[in-house]
């Protein structure tokens, strides 16, 4: 207690420092006066009396020192003094301060910006109550629909019936909510508004969704269990963003009705700002609808199909329950539910019954597919920025070392006068920490801009839709990260120069450093330059490898033509069309666009090339059924006549789908070459039949084989997926996947040399149905390029960092060479006086610089090969050991080094021997 009180008094003593000094002076004065009086009374003469009094008092200054030390906290005061001193020194060397700060700003900016992304995508929890209590079912994140009663590895998607079974029987979950695994678009129009419908992402959610997350509506009310019942009045919750951006926060939106896919819904509430649903994704939902309204909105509803699994589960663990106990309970329930459906199961599914299981995983970050998608990229970027930061440290350390050399004499004097080692070390260390804190603070601004830029490139947002819910402005963890990183950086590049200051021999330093021939302290600086060169080579090569991979992706033979093709995307579902109205609609759309000037031909399809595919099993007529372990998957697409002609993929055998394939004619299919290789190894596929479900007739007759093309670009570098194509006119209305009837891509082939303006396409569509929104119109080239956004971003960022590191390394090399040349001025002068000519001097200086570079290359080459291995999964089949790339990186580095060292070499060669010898 006493100690604490004393500490506090000492801490605040700075405020009263002048008063205290005065008090001490007065007290001493009083004391000595009294003693003098006493001495006078004892009979001394006045002058001697005072002298004796002062003697008795003791050494005054030493006592004052003790007094002052007792009064304040000397360590704190000295720190403040030293900091002020450091600031003053930095101000007095503006060039150095600017160079060091700029270097640091770049490094800190890059690191902080990437960390902002890492934090948002990999580390952050959902903005909901107690996210640590949330658990989701499933370890992988799966999409879309899985049919039947078995799932490989784990049961992670469930049907609505299975969801209810889990919800009603698992008492370990206080709430268990369900959401579809894929995102839906809705055509939205406010009732009574004259504007055309626009499409917005939305989500069906179980009634307890908001209660499970523990979030209340911002305005109005959230959805409840009573909204999520059969026959409940259709209601919806709108996102805060849409409410603000489209309706200006108008309170009358709550309670008003909206057309969602042409069905009337009442908006009952607004979700809180910042809530982006259960999953971090580039397009957060703007509408939340009860699951039970799905059959009301979708003509091909999945809600009541027992064996269609399309829901993700996420729930809040109740008090007292553990994830392990709940997981065990749910495994038993899964088996019970499957048992109850034993009669509907196929033989293969019964065989797989024993291995059916499920896993819980932490759900605090939501059902994150983005995390899995970006994890590898972010790791690579984080590693790269780590390298850049290291180079930055090395560079600034070099600058500091040069400064330390200049200060050597001063340090020597202070040490000769008895300065303590700790203070001699502290001075340069403080300077470097101050510098790095400046750099960190300014780097935050750069990071903000950089993150915004990266977000714009990585997640190009569509007009009117919400962007990815990642904020570029630094959050508290990001601020902490920047602060700690700056501090660590400051220590990292400050320690070596600080310790070097200690190694000064006062006598040697005072004697005049310029005369000495020892290169004391040049080893650390050389080492740093060597490391910088090595790391630059690694980064340059990584950038080269990624760029080469991107180019090979973009210029690979995709198997379809991109030039002159335009892809318009629509969504008849959003305009409220029923499946049986679709065929005539497609005919009208086809005809109205085909009649536009400049259009050569048009085809509609479910998925245009690079747009995706629908999945199915394949059972070939005359082949034995595939065993339970034999994979018989193929992707398929529904297209209109002449599709292959429009996309420019040649039919290598048989013929294209034609106008003669109608609802009444025999069912036909065109298959891809990969399909033939997979299912007809040694047979002629033409005329063969196949089906998509085991029990039903194999009705599709193969009439043509199309050359392989990359319809799916999501797995670049892998073999093409087998595909088959069915004519739109032969749609089966009774089938289970009615959704495949809603074609959404229109591929338009322009006549050679002609252009088809976007506005005429819009007009043509509006003449067919003004109420049907066109989601997008873009060229095929844009659609393909859009698939490589991520790869392009990474290649560009890595190139940027590579160039940055090259620049820094060159500056570092320049600094070291210039400094060494400067220190050798007198030596050079002697050499020249003895007859060396300019080219010999230049060679002398360059030899030093290129020696360093050579060392850098020696260290860098193995590192580069390692980096190639590290990157190999992201190179899509291009070799990680690309000699051209490595050679190019070496060359670029060599040229930069030449430029960086030639300048000081030339300057050294211009030294006049007389001046050089006179300079000391």
């Amino acid at each position, binding site marked *: 207690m*006493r100690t604490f*009180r*004393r500490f506090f008094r000492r801490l605040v003593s700075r405020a009263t420092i002048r008063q205290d000094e005065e008090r001490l002076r*007065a007290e001493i004065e*009083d*004391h000595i006066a009294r003693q003098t009086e006493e001495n006078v009374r004892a009979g001394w003469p006045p002058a001697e009396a005072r002298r004796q009094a002062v003697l008795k008092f003791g050494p005054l200054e030493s*006592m004052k020192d*003790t*007094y002052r030390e*007792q009064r304040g906290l000397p360590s704190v005061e000295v720190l403040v003094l030293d900091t002020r001193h450091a600031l003053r020194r930095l101000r007095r060397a503006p060039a150095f301060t600017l160079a060091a700060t700029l270097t640091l700003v770049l490094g800190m900016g890059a690191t902080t910006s990437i960390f902002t992304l890492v934090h948002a995508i990999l580390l952050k929890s959902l903005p909901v109550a107690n996210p640590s209590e949330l658990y989701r079912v499933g370890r992988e994140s799966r999409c879309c629909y899985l049919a039947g009663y078995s799932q490989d590895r784990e049961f992670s998607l469930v049907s609505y019936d299975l969801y209810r079974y889990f919800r009603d029987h698992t008492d370990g979950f206080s709430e268990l909510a369900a959401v579809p695994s894929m995102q839906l678009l809705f055509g939205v129009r406010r009732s009574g508004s004259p504007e055309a419908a626009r499409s917005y992402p939305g989500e069906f959610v179980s009634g307890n969704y908001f209660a499970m997350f523990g979030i209340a509506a911002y305005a109005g009310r959230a959805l409840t269990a009573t909204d999520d019942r059969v026959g409940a009045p259709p209601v919806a919750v709108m996102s805060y963003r849409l409410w603000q951006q489209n309706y200006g926060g108008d309170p009358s939106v709550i309670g008003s009705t909206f057309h969602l896919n042409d069905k009337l819904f009442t908006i009952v509430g607004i979700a809180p700002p910042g809530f982006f649903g259960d999953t971090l994704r580039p397009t957060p939902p703007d509408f939340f609808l009860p699951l039970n309204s799905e059959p009301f909105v979708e003509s091909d509803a999945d809600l009541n199909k027992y064996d269609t699994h399309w829901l993700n589960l996420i729930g809040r663990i109740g008090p007292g329950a553990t994830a392990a106990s709940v997981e065990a309970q749910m495994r038993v329930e899964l088996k019970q539910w499957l048992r109850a459906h034993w009669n509907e199961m196929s033989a293969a599914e019964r065989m797989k019954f024993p291995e059916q299981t499920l896993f819980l995983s932490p759900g605090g970050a939501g059902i994150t597919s983005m995390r899995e998608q970006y994890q590898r990229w972010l790791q690579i970027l984080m590693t790269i920025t780590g390298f850049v930061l290291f180079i930055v440290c090395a560079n600034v350390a070099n600058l500091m070392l040069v400064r330390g050399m200049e200060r050597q004499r001063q340090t020597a004097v202070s040490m000769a006068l008895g300065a303590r080692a700790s203070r001699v070390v502290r001075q340069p260390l403080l300077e470097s920490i101050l510098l790095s804190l400046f750099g960190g603070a300014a780097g935050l601004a750069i990071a903000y801009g950089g993150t915004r830029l990266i977000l714009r490139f990585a997640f190009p947002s569509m007009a009117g839709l919400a962007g990815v819910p990642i904020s570029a402005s630094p959050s508290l963890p990001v601020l902490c990260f920047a602060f700690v990183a700056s501090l660590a950086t400051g220590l990292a590049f400050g320690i070596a120069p600080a310790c070097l200051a200690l190694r000064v021999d006062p006598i040697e330093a005072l004697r005049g450093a310029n005369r000495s021939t020892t290169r004391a302290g040049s080893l650390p600086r050389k080492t740093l330059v060597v490391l910088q060169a090595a790391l630059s080579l690694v980064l340059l090569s990584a950038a080269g490898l990624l760029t080469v991979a991107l180019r090979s992706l973009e210029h690979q033979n995709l198997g379809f033509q991109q030039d002159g093709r335009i892809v318009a995307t629509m969504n008849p579902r959003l305009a409220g069309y029923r499946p049986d109205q679709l065929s005539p609609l497609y005919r009208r759309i086809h005809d109205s666009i085909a009649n536009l000037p400049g259009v050569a031909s048009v085809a509609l399809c479910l998925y245009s090339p690079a747009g995706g595919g629908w999945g199915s099993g394949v059972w070939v007529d005359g082949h034995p059924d595939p065993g339970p372990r034999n994979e018989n998957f193929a992707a398929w697409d529904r297209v209109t006549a002449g599709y292959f002609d429009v996309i420019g993929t040649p039919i290598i055998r048989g013929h294209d789908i034609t106008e003669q394939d109608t609802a009444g004619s025999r069912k036909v299919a065109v298959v891809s070459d990969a399909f033939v290789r997979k299912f007809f190894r040694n047979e002629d596929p033409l005329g063969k039949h196949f089906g998509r479900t085991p029990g039903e007739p194999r009705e599709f007759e193969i009439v043509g084989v199309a050359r392989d093309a990359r319809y799916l670009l999501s797995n670049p570098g892998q073999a093409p997926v087998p595909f088959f194509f069915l004519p739109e006119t032969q749609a089966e209305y009774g089938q289970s996947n009615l959704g495949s009837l809603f074609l959404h891509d229109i591929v338009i082939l322009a006549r050679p040399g002609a252009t088809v303006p976007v506005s005429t396409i819009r007009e043509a569509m509006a003449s067919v149905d003004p109420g049907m929104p066109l989601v997008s119109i873009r060229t095929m080239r844009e659609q393909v390029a859009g698939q490589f956004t991520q790869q392009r971003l990474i290649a560009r960022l890595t190139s940027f960092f590579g160039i940055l590191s090259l620049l820094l390394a060159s500056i570092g090399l320049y600094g070291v060479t210039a400094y060494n040349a400067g220190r050798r001025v007198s030596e050079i002068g002697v050499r020249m006086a003895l007859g060396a000519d300019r080219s010999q001097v230049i060679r002398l200086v360059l030899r030093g610089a290129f020696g360093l570079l050579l060392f850098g290359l020696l260290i860098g080459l193995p590192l580069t090969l390692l980096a190639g291995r590290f990157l190999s999964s992201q190179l899509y089949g291009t070799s990680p050991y690309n000699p051209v790339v490595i050679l190019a990186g070496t060359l670029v580095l060599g040229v930069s080094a030449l430029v960086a060292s030639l300048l000081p070499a030339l300057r050294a060669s211009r030294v006049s021997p007389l001046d050089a010898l006179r300079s000391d």
Partner: protein
Amino acid sequence: MKPKADVQPGTLALMVLKTLDVLGALHGYGIAQRIEQISGDLLTLNQGTLYPVLLRLEQEGSIASEWGASENNRKARFYRLTRTGRKQLRAETRDWEQTAAIVGRFFAVKAEDLK
């Protein structure tokens, strides 16, 4: 003349506290005089060393000080014991006596006592 002893570290504070306890409020000079007087000139005391001790005791809250007028109307700073100081004095007195007693016993022990 007997050799004078240096002040043992830490004991000066105790002497100051005891002095103030006995004499009440007193200025620095008075405290110095009193200590020399009591110790019977056995101690060499640089009177100046008193002031850092006074400062520390004040920071710890054992004593308080204020300006006042002394006998011949000179302004002087008077120190007095606070309640904390009194408590501290009692505790330290006890400690000191205990330590002295223990050391005393060691000196009293003779070799034959250990058998």
